[in-house]
C-alpha cells in the first residue's frame, strides 16, 4: 500500500466533490481532475433534514 508521501510523488488523478475552487486549483497545477457538483442535502440544516426524513417515511 502507498504511504501518503508516496502518493503525492505519483501522478494524481483527482475527483473533487463540492467546492469548485478546489477543482480549479488542481487544474491550475496541471493535475487531471473532474468535478462533481454536490451540496449537502437541505444545505446541511438539521431541522430541515429532520423534517425531510419524517416526510419520506
Amino acid at each position, binding site marked *: 500500500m502507498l504511504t501518503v508521501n508516496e502518493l503525492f510523488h505519483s501522478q494524481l488523478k483527482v475527483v473533487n466533490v463540492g467546492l469548485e475552487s478546489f477543482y480549479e486549483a488542481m487544474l491550475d497545477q496541471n493535475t487531471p481532475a473532474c468535478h462533481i457538483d454536490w*451540496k449537502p442535502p*437541505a*444545505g446541511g440544516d438539521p431541522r*430541515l433534514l429532520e*423534517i*425531510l426524513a*419524517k*416526510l419520506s*417515511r
Partner: protein
Amino acid sequence: MSGMNHIDRANQEAFERMNAAEPELVDVVYAGDVLPGMDRRTIGHAGPPLDWEDMCGPLRGAILGAAVYEGMAETLEEAERLVLAGGIRFVSNHSMGCVGPMTGMITYSMPLWKVVNARYGNAAYSTFNEGLGKVMRFGANGPEVLERLKWMEAVLAPAMKAALRETGPISLKVMITKALAMGDEMHQRNIAASALFVREVAPALARVTENRADLERIMSFISGNDQFFLNLAMAAGKATMDPVKNIEHCSVVTAMSRNGTNFGIKVSALGEQWFEAPVLTPKGLYFPGYSEKDANPDIGDSAICETFGIGGFAMGSAPAVVRFVGAGSVQDAMNYSRDMQEITVGLNRTYIMPTMDFIGTATGIDIRKVVETGILPVINTGMAHREPGVGQVGAGIVNAPMDCFVKALYAFADYEGV
C-alpha cells in the same frame, strides 16, 4: 407504487392529473362578465397580493395606465391620486382564476382568452398579448399603449370570438406539443406556437371580419408578434394546474408567480396559501441602450409555464432561445432541463423534447425535492425597466427563491403533523 409513502402517492395523483389535462381554447370573454368580484374600480395584477406602497415601478406604471384605460381617471396623475385615496381595489389574478404576463393588468373591459380543461371541466383565463417593447405588461402607459389596448378590446377580441365560434375548441395541448418539436419552450420563445395558432385561426378570421382594414391590422398584429401565443400557454397552464389543487398530502407546487416584489408559490395540499420570498433579478441579455441597472426584479404570472413543465423546464428543446435569454450554450439549456428532473415527480408523457431523445419535460415540482437538493426551478423571463412607463429592456433566466420552498416545507410539515 411499492416503496411509495402517502405523500409520494398523492404526488403521483397530481402528476397523473397534469398529464391527463386537456386545455382547449374555447372563447373570448370580457373580464367584467366572468371574473368573480371584478368591477370598474378593480384591477387584477400578477403575483401574490400586495399593497401600493410595496409595488415596484413597472407595476405602479401599469396600474396608472390601466386606470386611465378603464376610465377611472383622465390622466396618470389623476389615477395616482385615486390610488392614494383608496379608490382602486387591487386583486391577485390567480385568485380570480386568471393569469397575465409581467405586470398582468386585468380590468373590467379587457378581453380574455377562455381556456377549458376538457378533462376536468374547469376554466381559466388570460389576457391577450400586446406585443413587445412599450406595452402595459412591462409597465408602459403612454397613449400608444392605451390606444392599442382599446383596439384589442373593440376590434381584435370580437373578431377572435367570432373566429373561435367557427373553428370550435382548439386543443392547446396539441399546439404546445407541436411547438416544442419546432424549437419553442413557450415562455421566451413562442415563434412556432404563434405561427401554428395563426394557421389555425386565419381562415376563420378572414370569413368573419367584414372590414378589410380591420382584418389587415388583426393579421399584421398577430403575425408580427412572436410572443402572441405566450398568454395562451399561460391559460393552458392555469387550466392544467387548478385541478391539481387540494389533493390531500400532496407536496406538488400548483402555482408560481411574482408581483415584482415577492415571489409566491402554492402547494397542492396547502390550498390557496401563498408562500412568499423577495424576488430575484433575472440574469440575461439587454436590448441596446439598457443594462442590469435598468432591470426590475422578477415579475409576472408567466411562471405558470414552468409550473406545468414548459418554459425554462423545456429549454433543452429550444436551442434558439439560448442566446436570447443568455443561457450560454445549447448544452447549458439541456442541463437546465435535466436538472429540473431532480425536483419533479416525473417526465411528461405529452410534452416531449425531440432534441433530448424525446424525453418528456420535468413535470410536477415537489417542494421536498427542491429543499433537499437545493436545485431551484429555472424560469425564462422577460425583463421590465425598473421605472414606470418605460417597458421591456431584455430577457433572461431567473430562479425561484429558496425561501418560498423552505416556508412551504415548514407549513407542509405542520400539516402532516411532523
